[in-house]
């Protein structure tokens, strides 16, 4: 904090960035903030509708399957826990890639970016499986085969919110994977090496962590509570 104290008096005097942050990074942060408002609007709408309903389907009854699990075996939360850990680990490899970039360590950047891309692809694979499974159970936008927790007839609000919000998040993961693949190609082409810095990786990293951050909220709101 000592740097802040000395910088404070002339912070807004001009001639230097008052935020001490690169322009592209500032813009990425503000983009992510606007995205936060979009996701929050979705999740708060979901919460409002759930609070206004007399009963709601029990997530543990809906999301209780696992790939290749025998019929009748119920494993609530297990599959989605694996998805959560995949995303956390891919976030870690992304931080490692960003840090390697700060030290101009091209080999480590490439290695960690590849791991991050694999993590993202695994997550998307899990989500594709889950969506397919739910679709075959009769769930889709406008269709809800799951009864409420108290055995009463359900509304389609549950599936509409689930598919819209996890779909919007999945789209963000997909975009993140594409961005990371572009970063990997640029690293392999020595674009950042010639530029002298790997700041672009840092911006891609911010986006990727945001995707992980949103999942923390989606996971809690849909599967845990």
């Amino acid at each position, binding site marked *: 904090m000592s740097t802040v104290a000395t910088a404070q008096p002339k912070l807004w005097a001009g*001639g230097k960035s008052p935020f001490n942050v690169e322009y592209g990074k500032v813009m990425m942060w503000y983009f992510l903030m606007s995205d936060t408002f979009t996701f929050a609007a979705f999740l708060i709408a979901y919460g*409002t509708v759930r609070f206004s309903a007399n009963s709601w389907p029990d997530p543990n009854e809906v999301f209780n399957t696992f790939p290749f699990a025998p019929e009748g075996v119920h494993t609530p939360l297990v599959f989605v826990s694996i998805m959560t850990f995949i995303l956390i680990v891919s976030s870690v490899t992304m931080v490692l890639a960003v840090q390697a970039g700060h030290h101009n360590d091209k080999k480590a950047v490439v290695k960690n970016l590849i791991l991050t891309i694999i993590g993202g692809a695994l997550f998307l694979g899990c989500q594709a499986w889950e969506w397919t499974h739910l679709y075959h159970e009769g769930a889709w936008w406008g269709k809800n085969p799951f009864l409420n927790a108290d055995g009463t007839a359900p509304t389609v609000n549950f599936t509409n919110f689930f598919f819209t919000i996890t779909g919007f998040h999945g789209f963000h993961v997909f975009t993140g994977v594409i961005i990371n693949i572009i970063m990997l190609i640029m690293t392999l082409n020595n674009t950042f090496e010639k530029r002298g810095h790997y700041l672009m990786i840092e911006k891609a990293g911010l986006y990727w962590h945001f995707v992980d951050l949103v999942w923390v909220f989606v996971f809690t709101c849909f599967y845990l509570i």
Partner: protein
Amino acid sequence: MEYSTNSHGDYSAIKKEIWKVTLILSLLTIIELVFGFWIYAQPTMGEGLKWTLKGLIIILMLSKAFYIVAYFMHLKHELRTFIMTIILPLISFVWIIFAFLYDGNSFKDLRNGFDRHHKAQSKVKAVKPAATHNNTKKQEHGH
């Protein structure tokens, strides 16, 4: 314009911090899951305990968000002025969440109070609607 590239501290110290945060995030997730399983395993659980556990899950969720934003997204090491431009707008959520959830709950109470038909209908037990099964529909159309 001049700006730092955030390369403060040496490589191994930063790596150590990253692994520490990873461990914390994993632990918080595991505790969340334990609470989730607890709610699932005890369907007869009292409302008080259930809401306490759900509240704890939300606190754990917010602490996970803090660790991701502060350490992985590096916001903790930015200048205070910059942190504030991100954090202050988000404070409005405190009110937005409270107001909307209160409104949802109020709508439920009003509808139950004034719309007897709605209240009676929402107490009727239903059978699992098999007709909307996506699989059977597929076969009917012969895809």
